[in-house]
């Protein structure tokens, strides 16, 4: 069990979790975050994504698509192996934490 704190923040965990199921368009990712109550401006969101890219947790690229007869550009993201590892580590960290906490609570009740 890792003793150190996880490398990613709660917000980043949310993002990593979202992209872990497959590629995702930035716009949709932002909507999913908003659905979980995390509302941010587009630049703020992409700044965060850029940091995740810098840390090589995700990989991002532009894609050209035809939408409603118009060519549009969108930025897509996919999780990297390093990203998956970070996500898994974070999950384990918090699971262990909660397990220990529960155990401590039971002891104190007993």
């Amino acid at each position: 069990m890792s003793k150190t704190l996880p490398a990613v923040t709660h917000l980043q965990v949310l993002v990593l979790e979202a992209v872990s199921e497959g590629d995702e368009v930035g716009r949709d990712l932002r909507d999913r975050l908003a659905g979980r109550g995390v509302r941010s401006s587009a630049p703020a969101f992409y700044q965060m994504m850029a940091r995740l890219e810098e840390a090589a947790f995700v990989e991002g690229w532009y894609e050209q698509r035809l939408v409603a007869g118009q060519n549009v550009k969108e930025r897509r993201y996919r999780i990297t192996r390093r990203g998956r590892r970070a996500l898994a580590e974070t999950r384990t960290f918090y699971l262990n934490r909660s397990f220990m906490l529960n155990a401590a609570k039971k002891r104190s009740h007993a």
Partner: protein
Amino acid sequence: MRLCRRLTPDALRVSAFDPAVADLERDWATGRRRRPGSTGRAAAYLSLALECRRLDAQGRLGQMSARVNRESWPMSFATDFRRAVRVLAHQPLFAAVAILTLALGIGANVAVFSYFDTFLLTRLPVPNAERIVRVYSMTPAGATDIISYPTFTEIQKEASGLVLAATAPTTVLLTDRDVTENRETELVTGDYFRIMGLTPLIGRLLDAQDDVAEGAHPVVVMAESLWRARFGSDLGVIGRTIRLNGHPFTIVGVVPAPYRGTLGASMADLWAPVMMQQVLRPRGLTLDNRGWGWLSMVGALAPGTRVNRADGSLALVAADLNRRFPAKVPLKLMAQPAALLPDRERQAIAPYLRLVAVFTGLILLAASANLAGVMQTRVIARRRETAIRQSLGASRWRLVSEWLAECLVLSVCAGLAGMIVARGVVSTLIRLKPPAEVIGNVSFDAPFDWRVLAFAAVTALMAGLLFGLGSAWRAALVPPGAVLKEEVGTMAGGGRGARWRRALVTIQVAVSTVLLLVAALLASGLLRAQTLTPGFETDHLALVTFRLPPSALAPGPQMFTPALLSAIRKAPGVTAADVTRSVPLEPGQDGEDFRIPGHVERDGGATGIDDAVVGAGYFDALGLKFVRGQAWDPATEGRRDKVGSIVINETMAKQFWDGRDPVGSTIEFVSNGPVTVTGVVRDTAYYEVGEAPMPFVFIPAESLRPHGFTLVVRTAVDVNSMLATLTRVANQVDPAIVAATAFSFTSMRSAYLAPQRLLVTGAAVFGVLALLLTGLGLYGVVSAAVAQRTREIGVRMALGACKSQVLAAVFKDALALVVVGTVLGLLAGYSMAGSLRTWIAGVDPLDPRLYGLVTGLLALTAGVAAWTPARRAAGIDPVTALRGS
């Protein structure tokens, strides 16, 4: 878009701005967001760029800005307020001047609003206020509220959905224990107090049992204030007998304060049954006279009834009455929620209030503009501080909110001080009120209620925002880098700030020009009204009104006046005297219809001509000269039942006789019969000095026998010393005749001009105030400009400019500021000038001297304001200036 991209910090351009733009465009393409116009798109890109800048700044400034931004909104505002209070407490002089300036503006507005509130918005102070209505009978000219007693009883019987009562104002002579005085009285029908829902303080109020037979109910109730002042709050007053107009009346109750009747601004002291009108409002007429309109109606809506339903039922009643009693003008009835003042008075007061509200609004504007200028200077003085704070991570909104907090603290203090100012204005007006014998028992008080408080709060906040927003925004726009790099000596602010301050000063100049011009126009008009002679000598003229015993009013050939008149004419110091029904130069017109041979009106009807009912000696008493013929013979006229002769004025002779001699010709007096013209008198002013000449007819009082008249007495000595003598002489003739009022013509004139004088004083005070503010504003702008140009002036002087050239340059600068504002102000003032005639007839809206005077005053102010900065500029030492600091 490209421009916005360039605005974005390098670090975020590719990583955040580009994908955000891509998303935005995708949203527009998919229709998730409506595709905006090019401006909207530019705004969207710009907001992305600004957001990126914010993120960048936040990222770079790290911890500190994060902490600042995390503070919750109310918390940070509270912090700002505390800071603002501390800052202002450190500069008590600035704070005091700013608060005082604004308080004057706010106070004037609150005072005007409190009058507006009292006169136009307040309801009657009774428990049922929201259900009380006034019922007006409508004429084509607008609402009038008088109807006859028989008509009232019909309406009362037939109207459904509301209970009605009738009232009429009168002034009675109240005699108790040998003290006699005038008291405003409201005559009321039986349901009156029930409608108001009032309960007596002591005793009982008037009710249906006092409303049975004419002349059979000598009972009276009085207002609490009269009971306390005159009867010492004596509980034993119930059942006591007092004399009203010489007749015994029994006091049956006391009406609790603050109720003072439905008479409007004139407050009732007594209430008596309408049934006693013959004694209390002597006109020699009985209640059953259908042609005598004299009553107003008030009513209470039945619970759950709306005003428009009551209106419907009144329309039915009116239609029924019109069918049964066809009249020339059909009766139309309308109910309106009852305000404290009747409609007629509200309409008379509203334009005055509107004009004064324009003055006070302008003053507030000038005060706000002045403060905005001062705040602007503070923004500049604190640029360095602002820039440092900004580079340490304070957000723009944070800076704006700090400045706003400072302005709001000032405006809240000013609002509180403004309430005190407003109270002071109201109590000054109460003190300036014309004497009661001229204008009656009119209240000038305007108590503050929640509406006034709300108005004061809103005004203060609006003023705070008005002068605060501009400077707050400018404070936030300070570019930190530029300021921190800025050299000392050019600290006076950039060109944009200077332009903004110049605009503010222009507003102030324009406002004070308008106010000064209006004050000057009004003052010159008033001066003209006071100095112009009305066409007769106004000195040594006394006006005495009498209350007649009912015996004197009995119809018959014998009038009491001959005895009284001869006694007064014989009194020492009296040179001439006679009666008139209408006093000259008093508001209120009378007119009669005539048919003049050889003259046909366009509609084929009779010609309406204004008239006065006067005694034959009136012309001598007033000093009116006859151009042709003479007055009628009083003895012959006195024996007639109908009017037999009249006197006309010059204009009428010119207009209808066309150069022929009208004396001896006969015309038809429509409501009377044929009358002969016995003389033509010179034109004088009849209602207002300076009015256009109009045809006028004098009708003999000897044959018409008017009820209620004024005695015009010409004296050889000072009028004021004569008044007591005149009263005594009248009492000697018949103890039942009492002089109700006696005063000199000049005092009456000046009392009637009191509202106009008040208006002029107000405009002048506001004008001077605005001028003072303008001077301060100008001083600020000019001295800032001098400070900013120190180096430039130094260079010029080093290159050989002499002191006088520098002085001239500064003065030219100040004058240039004034010119635009003055021209704007003069134009605005001119557009208002025409309407000023409504208030003062003598106003000449194009008097070039006044325009010159105002312009000169403004130029003088500019000169005085620029003097010190100009001297400072001329005293600049080129060496020091060039060295920089």
